[in-house]
């Protein structure tokens, strides 16, 4: 493994990844990889997570194609140095900021979107001119094997490598020196990654999670809007990998008096989307493995929590399936309300007044996304200014992920750093400042021995008080 990394470093040192043509060729090859292997990708996702092709296309294949295409069309623009303004004092001078690759980067991806979370950062790293080691999650083994076998067939082996393995491989990788580490996963492991990075002063981007709330305030508008709200909530909870997503809706906040309306709408929508009961469930992913299954089942073990189930609750251990489950007002100190759920259980918390949702959200750590279904412009403004999250999405769920012009990342416990679109390029680049100066004219007062006159001159110069300077030079100001 150390040999592979040495090769990555050598390739970078020799300038193998610098040229725009290399970067473009790699990105095009990646697009080819995706286009030519769609069926294998669908198969692997079905095997690991029970994802249906539509979900796989919507959340993985389609997202990646879009990302590569966008990057290819913008790359030349991103790579170009940007001019920076220089004050007249320094004339003649030219200032610019030039993006440069960081070097050898390490990408850790997660099991729930095994292709998107591995390849989207990879797109960013390649576009910025780095060499990359990709460590996919072994909890999605079929997808990991696919990446290990297929990437070398399409991409430059000397610059982009994939390593298989579990936590032990991850630990070994963290002992080595990298120029950047990009990590998607849990806050617990995020801490370990950052602590290891600290030893080498390696900058990191941590894409973590949190309890993403959805405030529901549109049920009393029109029936059609209420229906769309319900569809978007259901789509935003069980749609992405059956709730096993960092941006999945974790819990709902709604006014007491509208709770039953909401539950009825959700039930109808769930049945229409996924089926009537656990035996006839379709178009929905399963739980990734036994460990996660048990964790979720345990969340329901608390009798007070179990009592609050108003829909669903059935589990099938053999098939690792838990049906979409709705809970109404489970105890606030229960685990299901303190830990990120990451599964198909949806608590609904009722409030006397929907405005209380702001305080409720603030009592928990900053989530990756806050969803708010409301048409009240004042309330929207309050949510924006009084809560803190990576992103806020009004009147929808999930789609912000598709917006390449919006930075995707967390704040506080949901992480730091960001990517998507140009932000991916930036996150794997160093923005180098460059100043070009001419030899003339010279500002003599810069140089010792220093006198009061020189001091006044420089003060005026630094305040860009050009008029004052002229006065001084003409003898009209005294030092």
């Amino acid at each position, binding site marked *: 493994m150390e040999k592979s990394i040495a090769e990555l470093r050598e390739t970078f040192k020799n300038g193998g990844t610098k040229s725009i043509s290399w970067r473009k060729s790699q990105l095009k090859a990646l697009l080819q990889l995706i286009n030519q292997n769609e069926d294998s990708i669908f198969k692997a996702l079905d095997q690991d997570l029970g994802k249906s092709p*539509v979900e796989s*296309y919507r959340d993985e294949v389609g997202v990646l194609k879009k990302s590569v295409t966008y990057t290819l069309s913008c790359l030349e623009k991103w790579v170009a140095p940007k001019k920076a303004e220089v004050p007249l004092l320094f004339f003649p001078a030219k200032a610019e900021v030039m993006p*440069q690759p960081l*070097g050898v980067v390490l990408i850790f991806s997660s099991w729930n979107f095994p292709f998107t979370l591995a390849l989207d950062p990879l797109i960013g790293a390649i576009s910025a001119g780095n060499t990359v080691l990709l460590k996919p999650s072994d909890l999605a083994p079929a997808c990991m094997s696919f990446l290990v076998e297929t990437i070398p067939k399409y991409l430059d082996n000397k610059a982009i490598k994939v390593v298989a393995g579990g936590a032990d491989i991850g630990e070994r990788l963290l002992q080595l020196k990298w120029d950047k580490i990009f990590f998607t996963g849990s806050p617990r492991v995020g801490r370990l990654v950052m602590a290891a990075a600290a030893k080498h002063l390696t900058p990191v981007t941590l894409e973590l999670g949190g309890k993403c709330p959805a405030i529901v305030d549109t049920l009393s508008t029109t029936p059609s809007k209420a229906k769309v709200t319900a569809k978007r909530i*259901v789509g935003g909870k069980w749609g992405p990998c059956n709730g096993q997503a960092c941006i999945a809706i974790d819990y709902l906040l709604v006014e007491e008096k509208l709770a039953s309306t909401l539950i009825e709408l959700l039930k109808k929508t769930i049945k229409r989307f996924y089926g009537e009961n656990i035996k006839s469930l379709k178009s929905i992913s399963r739980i990734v493995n036994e460990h996660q299954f048990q964790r979720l089942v345990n969340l329901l073990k608390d009798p007070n929590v179990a009592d609050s189930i108003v829909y669903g609750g059935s589990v099938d251990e053999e098939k690792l399936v838990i049906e979409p489950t709705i809970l109404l007002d489970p105890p606030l100190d229960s685990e299901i309300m303190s830990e990120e759920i990451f599964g198909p259980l949806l608590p609904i918390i009722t409030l006397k007044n929907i405005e209380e949702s702001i305080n409720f959200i603030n009592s928990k750590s900053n989530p990756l996304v806050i969803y708010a279904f409301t048409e009240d412009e004042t309330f929207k403004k309050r949510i924006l200014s009084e809560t803190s999250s990576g992103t806020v*999405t009004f009147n929808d769920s999930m789609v912000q992920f598709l917006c390449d012009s*919006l930075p995707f990342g967390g704040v506080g416990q949901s992480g730091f750093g960001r990517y998507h679109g140009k932000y991916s390029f930036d996150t794997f680049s160093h923005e180098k400042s460059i*100043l*070009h100066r001419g030899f003339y004219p010279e500002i003599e007062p810069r140089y010792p021995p220093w006198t009061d006159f020189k001091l006044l001159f420089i003060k005026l110069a*630094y305040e860009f008080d050009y008029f004052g300077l002229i006065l001084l030079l003409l003898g009209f100001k005294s030092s």
Partner: protein
Amino acid sequence: MLMENKAENKAVFDAESANEVVKELRDSFVTGKTKSYRWRVTQLKAMLKMLDENEPQIVAALRDDLSKPEFESSLYEIQMVNNSCRLALKEMNHWMMPEKAKTSLTTFPSSAEIVSEPLGVVLVISAWNYPFLVSLDPVVGAISAGNAIVLKPSEMAPASSSLLAKLVADYLDSSCIKVVEGAIPETSALLEQKWDKILYTGNGRVARIVMAAAAKHLTPVVLELGGKSPVIVVSDINLKVATRRIIAGKWGCNNGQACVSPDYIITTKDYATKLVDSFKCELERFYGKDPLESKDLSRIVNSNHFDRLSKLMDEEKVSSKIVHGGQRNEKNLQIAPTILLDVPVNSLIMKEEIFGPLLPIITVDKVEQSFDLIHSSGGKPLAAYLFTNNKKLKRKFVETVSAGGLVVNDTAVHLAIHSLPFGGVGESGMGSYHGKFSFDAFSHKKAVLYRGFAGDAFLRYPPYTPGKLTLLQALLSGSIVGIIRALLGWFWA
């Protein structure tokens, strides 16, 4: 609890005290006080007043701590912070405005923006060499972004540290901005707390400790460190001007004790003598025949660093390479501008960041070899400098040398240009600040997407069918033709 230490009559600042400070600031932050534009403006104006009314005291403290000449104190410590405040006051309104983001056909209809919000309660740990500049400049950024702040100045500049504590308490809002003085125990107590951001200026060893402590709370950090900033001098230049500019950037900035100080020079063998002679001539013009008598040079900060620098100069095979200077006064902690020619590349003076008034000159046969030398030295420095009129060399320098910032035909001045981000890469640090970059460093850029209820793409939702897949493919590709085709196909199917 604050324990009374009767012997010193001073309270001990431990983890609990640190916790109390953070709690107080967090309570202030939660009230929304620091978020208001008015509050930020009043604090920045107060800081301007603070600098204006206390210039003599600041100059005196810097003289105590570093024997810093008034010129340097006035310009680099006071004037530069003054400039940052005024820039922030002028531009803050603009910086605080949400930035519109483009949305594509895929999420139509929608609108998007990026909103800047303060991170919360932030910690600024500063260094001893520019005690006012690297304390207050980050604080200006943190204020402009709307945060509550703890400033921990360096104990190695004690007069400056206590003056800062007094002035900040007198002029700024103590319920939101505090100074905590102290050394390792106090810093450790602070680092145990949960911060929303830490900006640290200093060395790589302590930076690792800061980042490891930050990791426990997932706190993002900006680390402004150092490195060996090389200067390549090519023979095609105006030697007098180049020499002066190198002197100004080296000995004119705290006598070489600056993070962007030219650390060593690389030049061609046949130019070295001319270069050394030029230095001798200009150094004498600037500092006189006996530099230890000059009032225009800072002293070495303390005996530890004096000993460290002496060791670098006295190393066997190095001491014989001194071609100018070398005078020392241990009592006054003074070392004169010293130039060394062709020290061994594996000597201590060429391995660690000098941070002092010693300037080694390394010679190479051809100028191009200087690039190899810089690359082989390992770590990426905070700055790198090149003096030449040759366009090709400039291009090669700019494209291949990896450093925080590069300057062609001058040294150190890029710090004064607010449109350039100031920060390192690799061993010289991570993150950046100055100008708007300071505001950004202390902000969270929140992505906001507004959607309407019209245009609900039914094909997002289950039950999933092959027909939906085709439509979805078209929609995600964003191509109008593709979408129309797919829709027509759907209707015909």
